């Protein structure tokens, strides 16, 4: 097990997250993709913390914060999606293009 494998896995996970972020039509799935990207970041942080900074494990502290904030962000995100859904009766991202040129 080496650091690079974790980093590569995290990068792959991030890329999958980006792909899901820009291609999903369902707004909830967009939020799920963001969660995926955050988890990829967490994986990075954990890996660096273990291999580079095993004494002070600052990365793990960061991870804790990221998880907490990700939970809050997901809550707010879902609230926004709900708010939009109440008004427009859909969660299709392609219908939310009112603010164009």
């Amino acid at each position, binding site marked *: 097990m080496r650091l690079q494998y974790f980093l590569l896995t995290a990068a792959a996970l991030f890329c999958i997250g*980006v792909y899901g*972020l820009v291609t999903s039509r369902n707004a909830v799935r967009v939020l799920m993709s963001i969660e995926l990207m955050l988890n990829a970041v967490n994986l990075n942080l954990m890996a660096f913390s273990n291999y580079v900074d095993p004494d002070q494990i600052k990365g793990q502290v960061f991870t804790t914060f990221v998880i907490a904030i990700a939970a809050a962000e997901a809550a707010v995100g879902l609230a926004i999606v709900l708010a939009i859904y109440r008004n427009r009766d859909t969660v299709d991202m*392609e219908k*939310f293009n009112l603010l*164009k*040129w």
Partner: protein
Amino acid sequence: MPHSLIQSIWLLPIYTLVGAALSVIWFPGLTRRTGPRPAGYINAILSLFAFVHASIALSIGWDNPAYDFSVPWLQVANLNLAIPFHIDTTALAACTVITGINFLAQIFAIGYLELDWGWARFFSLLAFFEAGMNFLVLNDSLFFSYMALELLTLGTYLLLGLWFNQPLVVTGARDAFLTKRVGDLFLLMGVVALWPIAGTWNYSELAVWASSAQVDPKAMTLLGLALLAGPMGKCAQFPLHLWLDEAMEGPVPGTILRNSLVVQVGAWVLVKLYPVLALSQTVLNVAIGVGVITAVGGSLIAIAQIDIKRTLSYPTSVVMGCVFIAVGTGNIQAALLLSLSHALGMALMVMSSSAVVWNSVTQDITQLGGLFKRRPISAFSLAIGGLGVIAMPPFGGFWAFLQLLEGLRVEHPVISVVVILVNFLLAFGFSRVFCHVFLGPTNSFTERSPEVHYWMILPMVTVMGFVLHLPLIMGATQLLPTGSEFSLENAIILTWSTLSGLGFAAVAYLSPSVAKPIKLPSSKVQDLFAYDFYTPQLYRNTIIGLVSFTSTVLNSFDRFFIDGLANSFGLATLFSGQSLRYSTSGQSQFYMMTMVIGIIGIVGWLCYPFLNAG
């Protein structure tokens, strides 16, 4: 020290300029109630004042050495432009003629413009003219002569355009200004090019310089041609002659000035420039050629006109053509004599024709006739004026033409024949006008035509007196050749050409055996002369066509290319803004993708050196 009247001769232009300035008071917009007549009286009085000054100065300065003085005008760097004045007998005589004819023309105008409200404008312009002409003959510098010529060009434009509500007046004034302007501009080229070669613009110094000048003949030829072009336009010579024909649309008293004096200002400059022009034989030949073409063409055209004012405008071109011939062949004295006799005779003829027009309305000589019994004074004026211009002994014109012929007979036999022919044609033309207007049966236009009132008769009779006395004056001032100085043969030939011209016309226009209106065998030739060789069409097809085509092309180049280039920048910005706004698609996912691509791009750019190094 010369007499104080000669020392103060520079006041001559000032008098009339004061009159011109004072006339402003009686513009209809300023003096609304009492009419414009005082403007005319004031200007006439000031002209009389100038005339008295000039004639007394002439009698004092007669045969005295010239009095030179100069007035500083402008001094910059190495250029010192002082206005030099050269007061000799010729200049004083010219001033006397100018102020005298102006005074009489103004008296005539007081009668002629009886029913006109534009006196202030008219008389101020006449005064402006008089000032310009006096300045021209008094100053001794080509540069200031040019300035005076340009002022007179502007004056012609304004005076001709007096009654600007008539469309023909507007086009005539336009042509007069532009045609004379073209000549003046060529003259300016010559004036500017003369400075580095001669180093002076003073006529007297130019004459001294020219007597011993070593110059490139080609340069001198071009320079001389440019100097010739100014007088060519001013004197209404071919091909710059159409303006004088169209200038006949202007008010008549202005025509007196134009025919008798204004065209002479070009001759004056020409005579003064003779030493410079004589440096190149080509220039003299061109002057002779222009003069010959104008003299022959103009006299033929004059015979074919039916407008009384135009039958008199072309003879002005003709006599000026003879002046060109005289200068081209070096007969300066003959040129000055021709100018003098033409100024007086033509003034009288124009006054007489104006008097006829004033009471008979029409200017068409075929509509006039049989006025001799009713209007003997006008008839005698026209007759004596005509005889004074052509070579009829003992009038002034005879001695001028005789002197010209004397100078031509030996060296230029062909041109002397032309002069005799021109004299014949002039005599024919004048006789034709006289027969049409004063003899023959009366016409509906002349059935009840009274003689004009004294304001017009008085100056007419006065000028007639001058014309009749001209030979005596010439005799008293030793201008007449004595018996041994001219050949009797020349005098007889000239007299015969005049008499036969007068006689042929009299027979043709009075004899009932000749059908009226007279038709030439070829109507095309007749139309060619009647329409002035189709000069307007010639202008329109050459110069005007070229200039208007070029300006159209340049205008569209400016509009489409230059403007288009500047506009295209604006349009490109507008278009890019319009099209690039579609990048704001409204899809938040698209924005995210843009961010990701941006991050990838920046990271790639930052990593690029490391990737290469690896």
